[in-house]
């Protein structure tokens, strides 16, 4: 869909012996995996199995009880995943009082990484997400699905190699879900990686992590 004008530099995302707890309960223990350019990891599991906890932990919002999760470049230098990742949670981070364009311009400035600038404008990104008409509307007026699309537009405005998506299909209609699948495929084709928690199949080739399943 979007013609990829660039590709992300080579990197390796390495998680080793990760453990996360929530409310005093260990939900994830001794988890190790490795992702490189173009790989995806889909996380499934029942409610309360720790999907969100794991994703929030990888995004750096929770500190790990044990283990590390780092992003290494070719030279072996490593950074935290948080500084290189887009996190899409249950909230969009949009201010209801501001227009979609204002919200997106803010997140573009806030989340852009040095050396990975995008030429897209907020309006162009909204058009790519199929909601060009909402640019001038305060986000408070939008429907849940429209808000979701506005939120997802930031993934295009500030290119980051890692996408961390918690239930990304929520609130999207069938067309929106297909659109998101295309966006994810493009991202992987550009050499990005993504980690998504989901109940519904995402339609992408991926590693599969099942939490809390039968041992």
């Amino acid at each position: 869909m979007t013609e990829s004008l660039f590709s992300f530099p080579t990197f390796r995302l390495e998680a080793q012996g990760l453990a996360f707890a929530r409310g005093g309960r260990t939900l994830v223990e001794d988890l190790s995996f490795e992702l490189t350019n173009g790989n995806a990891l889909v996380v499934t599991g029942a409610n309360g199995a720790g999907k969100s906890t794991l994703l929030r932990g990888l995004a750096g919002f929770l500190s790990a009880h044990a283990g590390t999760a780092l992003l290494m470049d070719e030279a072996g230098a490593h950074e935290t995943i948080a500084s290189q990742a887009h996190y899409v949670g249950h909230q969009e981070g949009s201010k209801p009082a501001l227009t979609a364009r204002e919200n997106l311009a803010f997140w573009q400035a806030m989340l852009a990484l040095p050396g990975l600038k995008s030429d897209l404008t907020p309006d162009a990104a909204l058009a790519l997400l199929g909601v060009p008409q909402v640019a001038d509307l305060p986000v408070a007026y939008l429907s849940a699905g429209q808000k979701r699309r506005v939120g997802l537009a930031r993934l295009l405005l500030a290119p980051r190699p890692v996408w961390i998506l918690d239930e990304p299909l929520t609130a999207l209609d069938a067309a929106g879900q297909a659109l998101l699948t295309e966006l994810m495929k493009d991202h992987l084709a550009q050499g990005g990686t993504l980690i998504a928690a989901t109940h519904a199949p995402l339609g992408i080739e991926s590693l599969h992590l099942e939490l809390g399943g039968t041992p």
Partner: protein
Amino acid sequence: MSPSPLAALFSREIRVARRLGGGGTMGVIFFLILVTIVPFAIGPDLNLLSRIGPAILWIAALLATLLGLDRLFQADHEDGSLDLMLTSDTPLELVVLVKCLAHWVVTGLPLVIAAPLFGLMLALDPQALWTVTLSLLAGTPALALLGAIGAALTVTLRRGGLLMAILILPLAIPVLIFGVSAASASTSATTPFWPPFLILCALTLATLAAAPFAVAAALRHMSE
């Protein structure tokens, strides 16, 4: 092309404040109401008013600064902005500083500008108008920063406003002491202006240097 992250954050904060509740005007109206209530409570004795006027203005400024402070980070926590800011390249300490600056520009600065006017209503003499305004200008940023600590600690609490006030009022007492002390310099012959004023400035600078770290630490821990 795109503005720097901190500039973008500053303009966003100002815009949000302007569209919700008219930004600074609400704080100034609250300030006006507090100043109006006092003469009703203690009687319209102009001598008394001019003597305690600086203290009234300071207490009013303290309470007006608390207004809306509980939403400073709570709103960002609820709509997910805080999470996204944590993934930004910009250190959270700087984000906090800019948010506090914006909050001060919207709530503190209008008070400082309005203070001489309200001072006239409290029968302050011209010199006292100056000292009150200067001390408020120097002291209110410290109040906003200290308030941010309380706001960060109560970020996840639905009804954290009262708790926030309990947490930060003891911290604000030194600022209040030196602020009032500098402000009443002209009304009492024995109190000099400069020593308490310089200490007030030192307090503000110290808060400016230390509070962002405390606030950022609190936000990281409390939003886990």
